[in-house]
């Protein structure tokens, strides 16, 4: 129970739990959409989902400042690629939170004259941009790790052993692909925090892609991706060593 208390004491911890519940509701709602016997349950899930969503919007009210502060910190990074990617990602997150706050004010009734659809699209656009920059950073870090690995003698020996051990037809025909994949998986295994962050961003990106109409999936896919990314987020809060740095 003590770990639960410590976890939920962090503002982010609770938000992740509610996000998980929100997307779990969306997923189950989609799965039960054609089940006429469970209509009441679907209504309850819809109510729970919208309640969590609006509650989370209220609690996000101060997050623009947090993102700007994070952007200021990432501006001090030494690596220029990381500096660019993370600063732009944080600025986009700040813009996303501003749009989100405006949407909250509209939902509550403080500013009734706002075009909800336009601001919602703006928010999705900013969120999408921040995810793209985060993924770019992930790819850059993975590439760096892979390049570093190829230079290691120990790794080269491991690679040779792997290629000799598997005399399958496919690996013989496309040895470069097999070597590349082996290198990739080894790099990912040695940096679990990067792997987690990459998976999280990949899952997350389906949400704005669907919302913006770039890649229309369905509410079920959106719910599933959101659920997976929220669970991965909970893991990174529970085990701070799995949180990507910087």
């Amino acid at each position, binding site marked *: 129970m*003590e770990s639960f208390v410590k976890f939920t*004491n962090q503002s982010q911890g609770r938000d992740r739990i509610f996000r998980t519940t929100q997307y779990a509701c969306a997923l189950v709602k989609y799965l039960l959409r054609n089940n006429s016997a469970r209509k009441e349950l679907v209504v309850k899930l819809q109510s729970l989902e919208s309640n969590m969503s609006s509650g989370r919007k209220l609690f996000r009210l101060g997050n623009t400042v947090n993102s700007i502060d994070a952007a200021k910190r990432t501006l001090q990074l030494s690596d220029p690629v990381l500096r660019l990617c993370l600063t732009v990602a944080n600025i986009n997150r700040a813009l996303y939170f501003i749009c989100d706050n405006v949407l909250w004010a509209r939902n509550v009734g403080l500013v009734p004259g706002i075009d909800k659809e336009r601001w919602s699209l703006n928010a999705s656009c900013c969120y999408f941009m921040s995810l793209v920059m985060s993924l770019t950073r992930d790819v850059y870090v993975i590439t760096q790790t892979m390049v570093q690995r190829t230079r290691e003698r120990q790794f080269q020996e491991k690679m040779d052993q792997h290629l000799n051990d598997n005399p399958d037809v496919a690996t013989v025909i496309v040895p470069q692909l097999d070597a590349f994949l082996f290198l990739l998986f080894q790099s990912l295994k040695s940096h679990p925090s990067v792997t987690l962050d990459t998976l999280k961003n990949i899952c997350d990106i389906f949400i704005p892609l669907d919302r913006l109409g770039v890649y229309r999936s369905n509410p079920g896919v959106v719910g599933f991706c959101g659920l997976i990314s929220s669970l991965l987020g909970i893991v990174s809060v529970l085990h701070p060593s799995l949180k990507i740095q910087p």
Partner: protein
Amino acid sequence: MDSWVRFSSQSQAKERVFRAAQYACTLLGYTLQQGGSGVQLLKMVKQLETHMSLTRKLMRLGNSAEAVEAAKRAVHLSDSVLRLCLTVAHLNKAMYFACDNVLWAGKVGLLPKLDQDKWSQRSFRYYLFALMLNLTRDAYEIRLLMEREARTSHGGSNATWTSSPSPENGDLSHPHPSSSSFPVAILPLLSERFGRQFHLLGTVLRSNPPLLLDLLKNACDVFIPLDRLGIYPTGQGFVGACGLASSVLSILTIVHPWLKLKP
């Protein structure tokens, strides 16, 4: 900005800000109603208040566990009165949170057949009992500190203790008055005694800001369940003002952790 980031990363801190905003809406709604403002504005303020209340209920969903943990810690205190007061207060808060969670489920639609009034009354009863125990703890601490203060000032003015009673001595253990003036001098004597007690109370509270803050906070908070349970109805305006004041005081204890009463 750094301080805001640190502040908002604590789950409790943001919740307090929204509590302050919620009770500010209550107070604002009452003021607007008295001032005869438009229905639309009143509706918006009421809607905002309800939204904040429901969201705060959502954010409180794990707090029963926290209160039980706090009760487990309070069981190990050395002072028996503190141990009793704090443990029972935390357990009551845990029950309050449990009822609050059930209320949230009812309001959200998970339990549509829930008797919301009954559970609301139940939760306020637990809350009131927890507050009364906190106030008892405050009174006990004040009493201890007043006795200690009286002893130190008694020891300081030991040379003049046996002289005729005078307010400057500041001691409580006053020798019995001379028998000839007993029936006549009792009223000014009592007022003098109360004056000294109040002076002592003032000294103790001034030198212990955490205790003063906790006392004021609990005193403000207690009017909320008293009004909601119908024991001492004060009206929306007063409840809003008390809630706002106690929220601001608790934000102060978060911003300045040395102001938080320990344990």
